[in-house]
Structures are given as structure tokens and as C-alpha cells.
């Protein structure tokens, strides 16, 4: 257990030292949403209709933007080799890396969403559920993003390839997430959608590390 605690502590320190990695996607998220009223219309009824979809599409792209960096530094400085040589299964290692990634990208994005929802005239009553849905949804996005990151880490410029691999996998999260926000904005409950997002999270927590570990092994061998 102590090996995992030590790894958690170190990844936490690293995330704080590389704070720009977390801030860039947030700024991107903020800017995309800020452009919508300028580009579409400042009329609140039209914005409110667009709000759920815009919030989720922007969140998805922001998450995609940060996924590429998940294993890049570890690959470049030789740390990935050291991870693969540890006499233990890498499941915990991948969880730690993805959870820290989510804490520094997905969670702030969810916390920022009421502000952006306000800019898009999203009803205040829909904010708490939107935050919760974004928190759940971005965790799944981080886990799926890790698959793309592991498969492209050995390529010098994997950015676009990550998008091609990962965006199709993001679609279910987008559909149920945007639907949760839209339904609460319309005044009905969205517990069903939240439950499905939570189920996605659980499934991704169990299954994605297996794919990620295989991807990382291939990257290091290549």
C-alpha cells in the first residue's frame, strides 16, 4: 500500500507544479462559452436553448485538450519505464494518474460551470444537477482520454490522433450529460441520466486501466 500512497503523493505534487496543464483547458472552456453569445445571439431565450449542448461540447473539448499530456512527460523522462518495471500490477498507478488528472481538470470545470451556465442564461435551478453531471461525466472523459493518451504517447505529435481515437468514445457521455442538463433546465428531474453517467464511470474505472496498461507497454517497447 505504501507504494501507492507514495505515488499518490508524488502525482499530487507534480500536478501542483504543472498547474498550467490544468489552467489551460479551463481558460479554453471559458473562452469558448464566452464566444457563444457573441457569435450566436445575446437573446436569453435562444442562449438557454443552446446552453446544455454548448456547455457539454466545450467541456468535452477541454477534457480532450488535456488528455494528451497525461503520460507524455512520464514517457519523455523515462519514468514510464520505471513504472512498468515495478513488481506490482499497474492498475492502481493508472487510477492514481487519472484521478489526479480529473481533480485538476474535470472537477474545476464542473465547479466553474454555474458561472458559464449563467453566461448562457441557463436557469439557476439547473446548476446543481449540471455541476454533478459534469463532475461525473468528466471523470469518464478522463478515463477514456487515458486510452487515447497511452496509445499515442510514443508519437511525437499525437494531438489530433488522440481526438480521432477518443471523440467517438466520448459521445455517450455527451448525450446523457447534455440530456441531464436539458431536462433539469426544462424543470423535470434527471436522476436517470445521472445514474447512467455514474454507471459509465464505474465501468470505465474497471475496464479502461487494462487498455491503458497495454497501450503503455506497447509504447515503451516500440
Amino acid at each position, binding site marked *: 500500500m505504501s507504494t501507492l500512497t507514495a505515488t499518490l503523493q508524488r502525482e499530487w*505534487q507534480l500536478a501542483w*507544479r504543472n498547474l498550467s496543464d490544468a489552467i489551460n483547458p479551463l481558460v479554453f472552456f471559458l473562452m469558448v462559452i464566452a464566444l457563444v453569445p457573441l457569435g450566436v445571439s445575446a437573446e436569453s431565450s435562444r442562449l438557454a436553448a443552446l446552453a446544455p449542448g454548448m456547455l457539454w461540447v466545450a467541456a468535452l473539448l477541454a477534457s480532450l485538450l488535456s488528455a494528451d499530456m497525461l503520460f507524455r512527460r512520464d514517457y519523455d523522462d523515462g519514468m514510464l*519505464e520505471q513504472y512498468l*518495471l515495478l513488481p506490482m500490477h499497474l492498475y492502481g498507478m493508472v487510477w492514481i494518474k487519472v484521478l489526479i488528472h480529473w481533480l485538476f481538470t474535470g472537477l474545476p470545470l464542473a465547479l466553474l460551470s454555474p458561472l458559464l451556465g449563467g453566461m448562457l442564461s441557463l436557469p439557476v435551478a439547473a446548476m446543481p444537477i449540471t455541476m454533478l453531471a459534469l463532475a461525473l461525466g468528466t471523470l469518464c472523459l478522463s478515463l477514456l482520454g487515458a486510452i487515447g493518451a497511452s496509445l499515442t504517447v510514443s508519437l511525437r505529435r499525437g494531438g489530433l490522433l488522440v481526438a480521432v481515437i477518443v471523440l467517438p468514445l466520448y459521445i455517450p457521455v455527451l448525450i446523457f450529460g447534455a440530456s441531464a442538463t436539458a431536462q433539469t433546465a426544462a424543470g423535470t428531474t434527471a436522476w436517470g441520466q445521472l445514474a447512467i453517467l455514474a454507471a459509465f464511470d464505474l465501468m470505465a474505472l474497471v475496464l479502461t486501466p487494462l487498455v491503458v496498461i497495454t497501450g503503455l507497454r506497447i509504447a515503451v517497447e516500440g
Partner: protein
Amino acid sequence: MQKNSSPIVELKKLSVSVGQHKLFSGVDFTLHAGELLLITGENGSGKTSLLRVLAGLNTQYDGEVRWRGENIRSSWHDYAQQLLYLGHQPALKSQLSAYENLAWYASMAGVSMQQVQGALEMLGIAHKAHLPCYRLSAGQQRRVALARLFFSSQSLWILDEPFTALDTHGFVLIAERLQQHCAQGGSIVLTTHHGSENLGMAYNSLSLDALHHRENAA
């Protein structure tokens, strides 16, 4: 040299290719406890590839790698516990300090921070241990990476060009540590271009050039 003991590592008919290009083939060697094996060869002869196969990082090879008589594929868990691999990259996080970097390695090895402190003092970098590693020179970073050797509990060390960027004093410190490790019954496989005659100990060597040329002539 304890020639009579059973071998720690055995390579049998090892061949490694990169794509279509055969790097080397038919490499055999046996390493016993307390021995140091120096792998020599020109640039591109496959020294690093050989070390990576030995460390289990590359599994695309023909032949067999045995650890205490068992294939490393089947005894991976035991093997990994006894293995310390130091590759080309120093495997340090540049944003973290030497102390923080080594703290992680110390937890993996299950040793106390006092031993880490001792290693840093031994290598003369204790006064810079709290600076982020990107502030250190290449030689100092190498010393930080090599500090792992001073608190390692692993018996087999695989070192790829460990002396790169080290000054003469650093070289001597590391060479002494290598001698000590072998004297305590550990084994080392390493590549270096830096005066192996100055290691101050007996060693076996394996030249990949000879194999390479034989292959080309055939």
C-alpha cells in the same frame, strides 16, 4: 568471483531485430552473483536494446532470458523485485526536487529517508537536494539518478551509460559503489564509453560488434 555458484542471469541464443533489421543474434552469456558484465559495441550495435530485453522492457526477441534458472516471463514478479534499471533518461521529474524524486524511489525500495539523505551527502548534492531538478546541471542530475544505487536493495543492476555527464570524482564514487555491490554478492550489467579500465575491478565483457560483424560476413 564465485564461479561455482549457480548463475543469476542466463541469456540463451538471444536475437533482437528492429523492424527488418537484425541488431544481433545468438548472444549467449551467463552472469553469476558478484560479477559485472560490460556490454561493448559501436553506436547502434544494440547495447541499449540488449539491456532493455534483459530488463523486460522489450519482449520482442527470440531466445531466452533466465533468472535463477527460470524464464523471466514466468518469474516476472520475483525478477522485478530484484531488478534496478537505469536507462538513458535519468527517470527524474524535473519539477520535483532531488529529495522528492528520491522519496518515491525510497518508498518503492522500502528504505528510510535517512538513507536517501546519506546517499545525497555521499554524492555531494545534499546542499541542492531541495532545488527542483531542472535547476541542476546535467552531471548533478545524473548524480541524483545514481543516488538510487546507494540505497538499493535489488541484487541485479542494469545500467545504461551510468557515467554520462559525470566528472572524474563522480565516476570514482560510482565505480566504488559498483565494486561494493559486487563484493556483497550483487550482479551488474552495464554499458559505458567512459574508461572501463578505471572501474577498479575485474569484469567480463561482451562485444556486440564481434557478433555483428560475424553476422554480416555470414
